[in-house]
């Protein structure tokens, strides 16, 4: 074979490249390049037409300059001109330039496409391949538009050369990936699939990539490829090592084609046809058998090629996950590789076994290799191999070996590479939780984790241990004891302080009986760490201190002293200062009961997806390996089988955006989402709001008001401190309302004062209440009301009192509505319709169509209409589904007759409500009020 000499054919280019290589500095290189660019520019602009050779040489130099990393802003046209040369070398340089320097200049694209078109129809296989390679390299949409129709024809035409077919298949694949909408296989499908039978192995090698891509997108259309692929594979696998001549690589017949065939089969489930399946299983067995045969060559190329096929076959076996015999054989084969002297093989065996571990058929077989894998974790030199060993241990972990595996991972962590520590920590944390039978083991593990690799313990991990300790009261005492002991270490990690602060703040009382861990000892221990900690941890510790005051009144003086010190109360950090001030105040003004309420033990966290698992998934990213798929299956177990549904995602997102300061009391948003428990936050705001109405009581509370339109008795308002009950009765245009104020706390309310302000249409007389409401006591107030004329605005009740020195201010609407003054009126159908017609002026009618907010139960509807105060008229409306009512509103000034019709539409869950009365304002008001009730 003739040697290719340097720069053969283009001496100028070789000289230029030599010059560049001889440049001593970057500056010299740039100088030389600029000189060359100027030269080329002048040649291109020159009067003398350049011949093909010169053009090729200069374009090639420009390309070289570009590949050195310099911008090229001319020469494109000359390159395009080269495309239409009929000399291969000129055309090749033109196409190369275009492929490397893709230009979106639409004028050029048109010219390029034109040249490609000419070459595609040239019937010269060399030119056709150049054009196809250019399309495959550029793959732009314009090219897809121009050639997506033509290329399939070239691909399947009987007279197309094999090399052109190869290029056409992959060119089409590129266009399909870039613009799937433009590549329509339809009529070509069958002929493309049959390329699997092509005599030329190169054509099969190229076509199978196209078929695999198309199959993965439209498996049904291409499913005939399965049997063809199996028979092709069978022929290759059963051939002798020299049968395939050109396609035998180091005594292995067609290794790449075999891999591609096995990969194609992974687009499909196991073949349904028994004969095809039998043949395939035979192939897989043969591949496994060959792995056991003595090698035909000592060269690594031989074993690599052979094992490439083996690993692909194992992937297929795992993909099918239905042949226990093959799965176990695969596992045994990989087991041998675990101790192979080739690092590559050990790595790949670990990786492949990881997926085998998730199959029920091979899980046990994988587990038998635990010692080897642990050994790999300890002794492998390549960190990526150790990483795979850790992955495999994680994947093979179950209840039977969890303690061993977690212990090994923990000890590995002591020396693990920094790059994989965080992931290891997450894995240990997940396994410890997943397989914790006794939670003291879990707590030990996590605290060890913090001790060994505290820097790599993310917030998710220590949040999670706290969630679990809070939710499981059987482990709380143990956790408190263990963390107390861990904190004894002279240098313990800040994460340990966080967990310690939180757990002792919640459950320190469980170990306070022991004089060695008395409240003061606990406090002093925590506080000895305080000054070494960051601001978020200090904030957490301050919260733990206030919890201590509640748990252990005897620590109050000591802790108050700490809070009062300048370093706390005047801390330059706003968060710390605020906590110190508020906690100090809280501890000095709140009664023990209030303290007990505010600082109550945290309620259990809702069961949800472990935030750690979410983090591990996030860390792994889209290249998720099967380990995580396995996690997906077993999540239920991990979470104690709790109903997670949609909130898993919310929980995960919560967990991934923790508030800036680690928040013990849930003063911000990380608190457990249990709706029943009042947020301690709002209460604190109430307690400390000295001036003006506090956040919760600002504005008038409307909710209670609307609940009383159709009823007269009930609880109008309730918060942490106060409950207001209501009882009322109405006759004619007069009403009497009894208000009961209940003090829910054990502390007296002082300066208790209420005022009722009425709109002008109502008159009221109120007796004042006593200014002192004892803890737990209830006081009553009577309000007499007279309706002078019809009205819309309800009376306002304002309550003010002091609770523990803090001013409370509550404003409420009293539920006095116009319908309270209804007198029911019974009447017959004829009367009703006569009156209905009499009230036919537009302004006399008010109508609303609205969606049902509650169930449409007949009895409930009737009760509400009766509660409205009207008479419910039976057998009046011709449609029995409808309701009609009549009543007269009694005011001092006048009586207003009122008719009502309610038409439910159960199917649409809608109502139409129509009110007619002699006074437009009354129609409208009653209609508005009533529309809110259904």
């Amino acid at each position: 074979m003739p040697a290719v000499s340097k720069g053969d054919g283009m001496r100028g280019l070789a000289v230029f490249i030599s010059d560049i290589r001889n440049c001593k500095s970057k500056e010299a290189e740039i100088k030389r390049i600029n000189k060359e660019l100027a030269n080329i520019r002048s040649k291109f602009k020159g009067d003398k037409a350049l011949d093909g050779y010169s053009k090729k040489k200069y374009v090639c130099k420009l390309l070289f300059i570009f590949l050195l990393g310099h911008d090229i802003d001319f020469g494109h046209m000359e390159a395009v001109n080269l495309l239409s040369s009929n000399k291969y070398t000129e055309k090749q340089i033109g196409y190369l330039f275009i492929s490397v320097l893709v230009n979106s200049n639409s004028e050029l694209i048109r010219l390029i496409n034109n040249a490609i078109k000419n070459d595609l129809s040239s019937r010269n296989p060399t030119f056709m391949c150049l054009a196809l390679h250019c399309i495959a390299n550029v793959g732009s949409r314009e090219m897809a538009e121009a050639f997506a129709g033509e290329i399939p024809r070239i691909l399947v035409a009987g007279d197309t050369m094999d090399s052109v077919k190869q290029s056409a298949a992959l060119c089409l694949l590129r266009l399909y990936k870039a613009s799937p909408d433009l590549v329509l296989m339809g009529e070509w499908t069958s002929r493309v699939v049959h390329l699997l039978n092509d005599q030329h192995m190169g054509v099969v090698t190229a076509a199978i990539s196209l078929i695999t891509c198309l199959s993965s997108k439209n498996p049904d259309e291409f499913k005939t490829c399965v049997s063809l692929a199996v028979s092709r594979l069978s022929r290759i696998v059963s051939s002798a090592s020299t049968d395939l001549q050109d396609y035998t690589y180091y005594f292995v017949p067609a290794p790449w084609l075999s891999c591609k065939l096995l990969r194609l089969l992974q687009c499909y489930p196991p073949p349904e046809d028994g004969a095809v399946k039998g043949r395939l299983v035979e192939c897989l067995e043969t591949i496994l058998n060959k792995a056991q045969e003595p090698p035909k060559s000592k060269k690594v190329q031989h074993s690599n090629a052979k094992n490439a096929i083996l690993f692909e076959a194992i992937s297929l076996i795992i993909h099918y996950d239905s042949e226990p015999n093959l799965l176990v054989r695969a596992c045994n084969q990989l087991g041998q590789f675990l101790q192979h002297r080739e690092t590559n093989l050990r790595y790949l065996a670990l990786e492949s076994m990881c997926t085998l571990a998730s199959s029920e058929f091979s899980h046990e077989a994988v587990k038998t290799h635990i010692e080897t894998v642990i050994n790999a974790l300890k002794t492998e030199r390549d960190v990526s191999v150790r990483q795979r060993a850790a992955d495999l241990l994680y994947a093979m972990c179950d209840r039977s070996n969890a303690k061993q595996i977690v212990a090994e991972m923990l000890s590995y962590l002591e020396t693990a590479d920094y790059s994989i520590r965080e992931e290891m920590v997450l894995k240990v944390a997940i396994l410890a939780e997943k397989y914790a039978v006794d939670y003291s083991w879990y707590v030990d593990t996590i605290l060890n984790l913090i001790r060994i690799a505290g820097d790599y313990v993310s917030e998710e991990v220590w949040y999670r241990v706290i969630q679990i300790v809070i939710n499981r009261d059987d482990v709380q005492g143990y956790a408190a004891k263990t963390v107390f002991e861990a904190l004894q270490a002279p240098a313990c990690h800040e994460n340990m302080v966080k967990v310690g602060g939180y757990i002792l703040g919640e459950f320190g009382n469980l170990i306070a009986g022991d004089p060695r861990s008395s409240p003061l000892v606990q406090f002093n221990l925590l506080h000895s760490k305080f000054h070494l900690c960051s601001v978020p941890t200090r904030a957490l510790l301050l919260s733990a201190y206030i919890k201590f005051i509640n748990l252990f009144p005897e620590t109050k003086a000591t802790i108050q002293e700490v809070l009062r010190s300048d370093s706390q109360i005047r801390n330059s950090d706003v968060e710390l200062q605020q906590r110190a001030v508020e906690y100090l105040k809280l501890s000095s003004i709140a009664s023990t009961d209030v303290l007990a309420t505010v600082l109550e033990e945290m309620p259990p966290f809702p069961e949800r997806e472990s935030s750690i698992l979410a983090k591990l998934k996030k860390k792994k990213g889209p290249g998720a390996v099967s380990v995580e798929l396995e996690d997906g299956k077993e999540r239920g177990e991990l979470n104690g089988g709790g109903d997670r549904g949609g909130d898993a995602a919310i929980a995960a997102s919560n967990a991934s955006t923790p508030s800036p300061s680690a928040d013990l009391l849930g003063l911000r948003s990380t608190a457990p989402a249990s709706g029943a428990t009042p947020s301690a936050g709002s209460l604190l705001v109430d307690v400390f709001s000295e001036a003006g109405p506090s956040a919760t009581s600002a504005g008038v509370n409307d909710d209670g008001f609307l609940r009383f339109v159709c009823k007269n008795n009930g609880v109008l308002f309730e918060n942490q401190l106060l409950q207001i009950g209501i009882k009322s009765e109405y006759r004619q245009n007069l009403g009497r309302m009894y208000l009961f104020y209940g003090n829910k706390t054990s502390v007296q309310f002082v300066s208790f004062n209420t005022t009722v302000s009425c709109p002008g249409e109502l008159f009221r007389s109120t007796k004042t209440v006593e200014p002192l409401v004892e803890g737990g006591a209830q006081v009553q107030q009577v309000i007499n009301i007279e309706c002078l004329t019809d009205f819309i605005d309800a009376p306002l009740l304002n309550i003010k009192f002091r609770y523990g020195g803090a001013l409370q201010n509550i404003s409420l609407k009293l539920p006095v509505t116009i319908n309270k003054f209804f007198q029911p009126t019974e009447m017959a159908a004829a009367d009703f319709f006569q009156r209905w017609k009499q009230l036919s002026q537009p302004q006399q009618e008010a109508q609303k169509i609205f969606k049902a907010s509650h169930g449409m139960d007949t009895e409930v509807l009737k009760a509400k209409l009766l509660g409205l105060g009207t008479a419910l008229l039976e057998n009046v409306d011709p449609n029995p589904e409808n309701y009609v009512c009549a009543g007269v509103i009694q005011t001092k000034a006048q009586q207003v007759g009122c008719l009502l019709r309610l038409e439910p539409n159960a199917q649409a869950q809608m109502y139409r409500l129509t009110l007619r009365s002699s006074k437009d304002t009354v129609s409208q008001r009653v209609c508005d009020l009533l529309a809110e009730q259904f």
Partner: protein
Amino acid sequence: LVATGVGAKTYRRIRFILIQNRAGKTRLAKWYMQFDDDEKQKLIEEVHAVVTVRDAKHTNFVEFRNFKIIYRRYAGLYFCICVDVTDNNLAYLEGIHNFVEVLNEYFHNVCELDLVFNFYKVYTVVDEMFLAGEIRETSQTKVLKQLLMLQSLE
């Protein structure tokens, strides 16, 4: 790296092929995904940093962003192929070797300088063996025959 439209586990392709020397000079860069020039430069540097620190006892595979690099060192040159994480490591490792053997035959004991002075021919060799990120032809005999035929054209 943004994986564009590659969802199915079974359908994979080469993302790029790089030939670099120990100093990090690029001797071939063949891209099968769209990257802008800055991104290409970044990838080249990253690959160099990842690969050159590894020794002969290490595997020929290294995780790289969401992908992996399969590489093999020949004298002072690193041949690197970037593929999806689930792709067949050994098939690409031998794919590299097959390619190197073709270069060796074609340039008669190939050395780094051959790749420098004949860079435009190396592209032709690549396109014969790898196209659209897929393996196109694996037979050394067939590839060399085609290359010699092209060599004879002017």
